[in-house]
């Protein structure tokens, strides 16, 4: 090992791994720093230099891949050793593509570890920031910046003049403006004039972050570099996620800017045509807006969603679907790793797979399994997708939830004006990583009356959401606001906590609102079973309303059950008919679900009316309609309503 003690940064979310690795390295004479996650790692890297970084690749939030990519974007060449349990060839390749130098599989082999440490310690290139640039504008090895036009944004006249001199000495043509507003005006006037923007993070009006955000959206061909005396980690990460091409410490501006711009310009040259990329990015942005498609054509009062995107590409997706045959609903919340064009491509692929397999794989774990196997077939594209899948039986207000890498939901119950919370387990292995289907979380949840479940992607924290809900109780308790609580809650969340990733918030409300009592029954599609079901229904109603004359009501219900057996399930004895009996303040509702795709109520009623009085009518609708106060058909679910005062 080198005489100089190598400084190692260990990045791992698992404290046991962190400590164990730290102890090994300390015993071997290394100086060790530790970071719990990618964000903390970037914070440390921005303020200190390390000989080597040992990076766990699978971490919640900013994972090892993204963290390494961002380190490279910062212009740092510090060796990164990918330390991961993913051991397939393609995993190794993916680590290298993210910018890692070496691959060290878990569990750790001390000998291999020290071989790598010695290798990089001997060629220690720890860099407070990238190697100092020579004072002369262009050294023999340094790139030529001749002909590149920089727009410098700096308010302080003295600093501005100093930086203009530095940049001009490096061969840049320099135009300056004092703040972001003027910079954006200038870009609008002559968008193709500039190749780079170098901006102070803090200027009056639109600051460096605003300039960066707008430039990357409107003029993606322009490279953007931001400098400041000090960056807080949240801002640093946000800048990188918004696509900053380089972050420059102001204390070392003169020495570091050359190398940082050089790295960014070199990388940009590898990308064949920046103009073509800009066009593609524009198309991606348009497509991205379509990735979140929510709700059925008929408004559903039990679900709400809001989202806030931070990136042009990749990010979060949410979809829901009503399954006609089972009468249930499916909800999928997914977050594709990365925020580039390829991640948008993966989003589209994901949605394609989802569309084609969802109906046949409604059970959450089954759906995760099949999507995972399809994603793994794409060997050349190594992205992963954190996913939550829900199968929602609205009739019973029952949910089956499986997560693959996403946080668990937050469960909220209202009782006498008080809110109580329960944070559910999340996690599991993301889709597209491993050929394993036993590493997802799964749980079943009943949503009782006055309760709801909040789902979200890893851009949000369960505890912060809980705190936000507590501070904004009216969003859940005020009748008007409670119908759509997600937008105000998400806005409040962003006011309280900074946004460093895409955010998506879903709320699933109990479907038992206003139901005094509910009972369920299911039976096989057989006429004798219809008799038993009618007996059960009669008993249930008699318990609740002992004096009710229910002869004609039962006739109507019986016809609906026969309809389910004969038409919905086509006499298939193995197919179940499911009943839910709800006692509402205004009467009785019975939902009857079969495996059929439903029918057009209006059309069948019209056909029935044309028949003579002695005919039964299509699907027994004459009888059903005669004695039920309302009929609703929703896919394979027929709902009958009988008005009465159940409070008596």
């Amino acid at each position, binding site marked *: 090992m080198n005489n100089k003690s190598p400084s190692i940064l260990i990045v791992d979310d698992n404290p046991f791994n962190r400590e164990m690795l730290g102890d090994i390295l300390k015993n071997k004479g290394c100086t060790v720093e530790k970071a719990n996650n990618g964000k903390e790692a970037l914070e440390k890297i921005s303020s200190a230099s390390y000989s080597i970084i040992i990076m766990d690749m699978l971490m919640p939030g900013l994972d090892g891949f993204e963290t390494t990519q961002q380190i490279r974007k910062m212009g740092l060449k510090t060796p990164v050793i990918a330390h991961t349990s993913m051991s397939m060839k393609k995993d190794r390749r993916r680590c290298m593509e993210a910018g890692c130098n070496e691959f060290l599989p878990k569990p750790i082999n001390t000998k291999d570890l020290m071989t790598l440490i010695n290798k990089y310690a001997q060629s220690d290139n720890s860099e407070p920031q990238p190697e100092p640039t020579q004072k002369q504008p262009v050294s023999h090895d340094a790139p030529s910046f001749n002909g590149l036009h920089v727009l410098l944004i700096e308010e302080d006249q003295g600093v501005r003049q100093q930086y203009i001199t530095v940049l001009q000495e490096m061969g840049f043509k320099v135009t300056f403006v004092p703040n972001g507003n003027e910079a954006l005006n200038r870009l609008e006037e002559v968008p193709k004039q500039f190749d780079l923007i170098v901006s102070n993070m803090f200027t009056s009006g639109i600051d460096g972050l605003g300039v960066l955000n707008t430039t990357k959206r409107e003029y993606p061909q322009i490279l953007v570099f931001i400098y400041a005396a000090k960056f807080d980690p949240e801002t640093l990460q946000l800048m990188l996620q918004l696509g900053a091409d380089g972050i420059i410490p102001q204390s070392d501006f003169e020495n570091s800017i050359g190398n940082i711009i050089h790295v960014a310009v070199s990388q940009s040259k590898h990308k064949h045509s920046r103009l073509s990329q800009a066009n593609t990015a524009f198309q991606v942005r348009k497509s991205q807006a379509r990735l979140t498609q929510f709700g059925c054509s008929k408004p559903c009062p039990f679900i709400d969603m809001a989202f806030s995107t931070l990136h042009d590409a990749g990010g979060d997706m949410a979809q829901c679907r009503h399954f006609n045959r089972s009468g249930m609903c499916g909800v999928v919340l997914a977050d594709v790793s990365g925020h580039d064009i390829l991640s948008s491509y993966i989003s589209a692929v994901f949605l394609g797979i989802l569309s084609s397999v969802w109906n046949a794989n409604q059970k959450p774990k089954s759906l995760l399994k099949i999507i995972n196997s399809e994603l793994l077939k794409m060997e050349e594209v190594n992205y992963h997708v954190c996913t939550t899948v829900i199968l929602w039986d609205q009739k019973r207000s029952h949910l089956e939830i499986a997560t693959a890498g996403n946080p668990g939901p937050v469960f909220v119950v209202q009782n006498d004006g008080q809110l109580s919370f329960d944070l559910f387990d999340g996690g599991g292995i993301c889709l597209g990583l491993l050929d394993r289907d036993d590493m997802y979380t799964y749980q079943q949840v009943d949503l009782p009356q006055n309760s709801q479940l909040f789902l979200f992607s890893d851009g949000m924290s369960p505890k912060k959401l809980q705190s936000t809900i507590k501070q904004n109780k009216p969003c859940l308790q005020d009748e008007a606001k409670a119908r759509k609580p997600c937008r105000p809650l998400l806005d409040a969340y962003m006011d309280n906590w900074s946004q460093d990733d895409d955010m998506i918030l879903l709320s699933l409300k109990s479907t038992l609102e206003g139901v005094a009592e509910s009972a369920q029954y299911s039976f096989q599609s057989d006429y004798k079973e219809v008799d038993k079901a009618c007996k059960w229904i009669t008993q249930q109603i008699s318990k609740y309303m002992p004096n009710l004359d229910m002869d004609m009501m039962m006739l109507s219900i019986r016809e609906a059950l026969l309809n389910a057996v004969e038409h919905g399930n086509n006499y298939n004895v193995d197919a179940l008919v499911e009943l839910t009996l709800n006692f509402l303040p205004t009467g009785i509702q019975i939902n009857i679900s079969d495996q059929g795709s439903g029918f057009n109520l209006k059309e069948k009623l019209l056909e029935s009316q044309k028949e003579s009085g002695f005919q039964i009518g299509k699907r027994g609708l004459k*009888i059903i309609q*005669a004695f039920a106060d309302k009929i609703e058909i929703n896919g394979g679910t027929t709902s009958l309503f009988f008005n009465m005062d159940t409070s008596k």
Partner: protein
Amino acid sequence: MKTYKTDSTFFLLPETDLVASQMEEIRDYFMKELRENENLDIVTLDATGIEIVDSLGVNLIIGLYRHVSTESKKFNVINAGDKFMKVANFFRFSTLFDIQKAPSGE
């Protein structure tokens, strides 16, 4: 279920609800009995014991009426309880054939 007859009338007595689960058996039995007793002029459905009539039951009653009518015979119902009458009134059976309520109103 059973049948009985007088000089000119053939009585059908299901003694059970006219519902889907019973229908195949009732229909087969009554049709067989009707074929074997073609010489009688009146066919009467004795509704004693019938409480529930579903759509298949309605179809059976209408089917019996049509079958009997095509042979120029008379069809009627006797001993109809209240529940039976509700269905009979809804489908306006009385415009097709005579219905006699059960004496006790059962």
